[in-house]
């Protein structure tokens, strides 16, 4: 299938060193501190990610960067500009896909894009042409004249992404762009975001899907209760906060707690760190096969053994804990 790519992306020079820069950024809602002293920089061309449990403060940070939510404290610069003073200028160069679609359900698919384009002062003819290209880009061309209301959740999400691209933004802000999408739609979105990255569009993403973050992000931060608790490339984070491999041991009907008590002490000989869950025991180790073999020789022996590479999910759960936050 040919990949249709909207034309006209251009590198705008000169660019400031960091496109987004935040120092001790705080967002308060009444007494509640949603974002608690965040420092970050996003470089041109970078694909930057926010991870964090529900309520960690990802959207609040995204909204401040998007200049629709004034920071309570701290310094924020986008394109080197101040969101309070230069909000309209900054927003004219941003593309925003908010967590809630907020599409115009009274309008058709095409009208949604054309009307939105007008807010940027894009001439009608250009807007229409871009809208058609973008709808092709997110594979919505067949629905161009249908109303938005009856579209499926995935279609609405794709339309929201298309809408975010209508002004050929230099930074694309994506707040959970693939939440609620089926695998096909998710893969389509990933492909498209990757294409945009290749064209030099800086992207800022939040997601609850660790595989998504691992695939797309050059660099990411993990937020917890409004603070950044870890930062780095997916690979570096795995190196730093997890082991190379993980062994998952299951014991049929035997509760892992009981098993752990019986082989007490010896678990830690097989691995650097372990974790006892209600349904399995996890061994974090550099050499998964060796640990698996050692564990198999224990009594009781595991009913199933799985050796896998560490993922971002292991890092995330290690950093933010397994208990529900929200």
């Amino acid at each position: 299938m040919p990949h249709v790519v909207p034309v006209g992306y251009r590198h705008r020079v000169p660019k400031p060193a960091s496109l987004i820069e935040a120092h001790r950024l705080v967002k308060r809602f009444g007494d509640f501190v949603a974002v608690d002293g965040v420092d970050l920089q996003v470089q041109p061309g970078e694909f930057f990610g926010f991870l964090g449990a529900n309520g960690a403060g990802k959207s609040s940070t995204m909204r401040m960067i998007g200049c629709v939510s004034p920071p309570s404290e701290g310094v924020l610069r986008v394109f080197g500009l101040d969101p309070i003073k230069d909000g309209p200028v900054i927003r004219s160069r941003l593309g925003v896909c908010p967590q809630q679609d907020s599409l115009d359900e009274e309008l058709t698919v095409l009208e949604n894009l054309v009307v939105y384009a007008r807010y940027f002062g894009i001439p009608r003819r250009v807007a229409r042409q871009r809208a058609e290209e973008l709808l092709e880009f997110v594979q919505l061309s067949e629905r161009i004249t249908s109303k938005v209301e009856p579209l499926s959740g995935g279609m609405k999400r794709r339309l929201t992404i298309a809408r975010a691209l209508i002004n050929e933004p230099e930074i694309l802000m994506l707040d959970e762009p693939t939440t609620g999408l089926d695998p096909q739609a998710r893969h389509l979105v990933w492909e498209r975001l990757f294409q945009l990255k290749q064209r030099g569009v800086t992207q800022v993403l939040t997601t609850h899907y660790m595989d998504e973050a691992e695939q797309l992000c050059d660099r990411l931060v993990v937020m917890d209760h409004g603070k950044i608790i870890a930062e780095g490339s997916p690979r570096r984070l795995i190196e730093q906060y997890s082991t190379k491999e993980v062994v998952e041991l299951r014991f049929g009907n035997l509760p892992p707690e009981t098993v752990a008590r019986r082989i007490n002490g010896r678990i830690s000989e097989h691995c650097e760190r372990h974790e006892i869950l209600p349904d399995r025991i996890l061994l974090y180790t550099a050499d998964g096969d060796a640990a698996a073999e050692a564990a198999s020789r224990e009594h009781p022996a595991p009913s199933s053994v799985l050796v896998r590479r560490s993922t971002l999910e292991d890092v995330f759960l290690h950093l933010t804990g397994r208990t529900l936050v929200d």
Partner: protein
Amino acid sequence: MVTAVLATRLGRLASTPAGRIWAVCLRDVTAAHSVGYTFLLVVGFLEPVLYLLSMGFGVGGMVGEVVLADGARVSYASFVAPAMLAASAMNGPFFEGSIGFFSKMRYRKLFDATISTPVTPFEVAAGELLWSLGQGAMYSLAFCTVMVALGLATLGQVLAVLPAALLIGFAFGGLGLLLATFINSWKDFDYLGAIIFSMFLFSGTFTPVEAYPGPAQIIVWLTPLYHGIELTRGLILDALSLSMLADAAYLVVVGLLGLWLASRRIARTLCR
């Protein structure tokens, strides 16, 4: 060549605040064009016409003539018609500004997306006001046509009164926006309706204000509709006076204040 220059000019205008206000208004035009909007328009237009017919000609048949402040005598229909025009100029913008805006802002959360573009909360408010003003203009125009057809106004008078009708729309559109920002549920609109209806009844609409007792006159004097009616009546009955400048100024101030306060409250809601 000329069109090219014009296109560039317009293009540059499009990314200014004025262009963005226009863009906000055009969104509503686009939506109206795709929704069955005509029905609402017809109802909004018919209401004051029916009042004019029943009060002006029905009740007017019993009342006879009305003596104006300057001693001139006019038929009751001629007395009521300008007031109905003012009411018609008020209704469209007020209800579009309040109910229409509330539904877009709070119910459909339309502007959450709009403010992610260069459009500011003030431009949202102004664009919405412009849209309700456009609606008011259509109602007024339709009503003026009826007045001319019934011989209650001449073409010249209509041309003179239309700007006044727009001014009334501006004041009530701004007021509507402001009130919409205080509204929390659909039920609150019953209160708005009640306020507007009592204002409609007691703003010198059906009787000269001089007929009211003293304290009531002060309350009436405060309502923007009273000043609107002073304007339309003066212009249509050819009874111009200097105080009409004050009436116009009052409407401008109400509209601007409504717009400004509304846009501040909208900003606080949208830019949390």
